């Protein structure tokens, strides 16, 4: 017999009736819910413990585990270097395949420092076994090392870092062609300014516009390379439009 999306045998019917009577259920569907809850909560060994009947209460709030951030010594430049070192270690242990610093920090490499709230690490993940790409191993690795995770940011001391998997041809190319750099004494890789400009043109948020202008003013840009990149990724018109508007104002 099929009822409420389930197939019931005569024995099931009898058991449901028994549950209804014993627990004072007001309806058969309540008895079914009780039985399902009991099944879900059934221990592998031992007796089946039925939960108390009645309407289910509010869902208990899931509290985030409180993780105290690992103490990172030194002043801020030292902590920044530590963050880069941690990511290098992560790469060495195979959690990520490769990485490069992108976003505002990459622009800062070529210009005077401008404000930003985090360090963006663009990453390539090892090829997944299935179809799903997950960032979980990164968060597990950092949690294991004792670093505090807040939303998408991981705090290495006072340095919030974010991992961004490369998401399109442009970011993949930027990662492939990133240049070697030194953060203190720690080796790292940074996006080329031309790729940084192309990505900012792609996004063109207000802060990107400010950064583009700052880079045009201060950085040494290979305009031929920039044009090639912009054309290759269909951004040339957008770039020209932005520059034209900027010149008009």
């Amino acid at each position: 017999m099929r009822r409420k999306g389930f197939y019931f045998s005569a024995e099931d019917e009898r058991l449901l009736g028994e549950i209804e009577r014993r627990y004072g259920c007001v309806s058969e569907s309540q008895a079914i819910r009780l039985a399902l809850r009991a099944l879900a909560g059934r221990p592998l060994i031992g007796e089946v413990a039925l939960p108390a009947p009645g309407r289910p209460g509010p869902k208990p709030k899931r509290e985030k585990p409180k993780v105290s951030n690992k103490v990172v010594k030194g002043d801020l430049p030292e902590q920044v270097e530590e963050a880069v070192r941690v990511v290098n270690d992560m790469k060495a242990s195979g959690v990520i395949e490769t990485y490069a610093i992108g976003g505002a920090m990459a622009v800062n490499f070529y210009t005077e420092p401008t404000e930003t709230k985090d360090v963006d690490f663009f990453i390539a993940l090892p090829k997944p076994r299935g179809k799903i790409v997950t960032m979980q191993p990164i968060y597990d690795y950092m949690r294991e090392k004792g670093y505090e995770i807040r939303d998408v940011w991981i705090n290495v001391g006072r340095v919030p870092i974010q991992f961004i998997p490369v998401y399109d041809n442009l970011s993949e190319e930027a990662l492939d062609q990133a240049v070697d750099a030194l953060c203190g004494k720690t080796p790292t890789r940074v996006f080329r300014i031309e790729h940084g400009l192309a990505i900012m043109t792609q996004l063109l948020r207000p802060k990107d516009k400010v950064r583009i202008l700052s880079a045009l003013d201060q950085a040494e840009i290979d305009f031929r390379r920039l044009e090639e990149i912009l054309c290759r990724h269909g951004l040339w018109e957008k770039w020209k439009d932005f520059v034209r508007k900027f010149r008009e104002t």
Partner: protein
Amino acid sequence: MKHKHEIDIGEIIRGKERLRRELAGLPFAEKMAMALELGKLSQVLAEARKEGRLFLKKESASG
């Protein structure tokens, strides 16, 4: 002779440019740290403005 309060705009612009060049030439770790400090400062100011603890002084019409 310049008045003692006279401001040399050219000197200010040159000084600003010099400072920008000096900042751009700092080691990467120093620049990263500075950018984060600036980001934090900007966040604090934005929060204070939002909560009404900070006002931007408007210039009066009479000057």
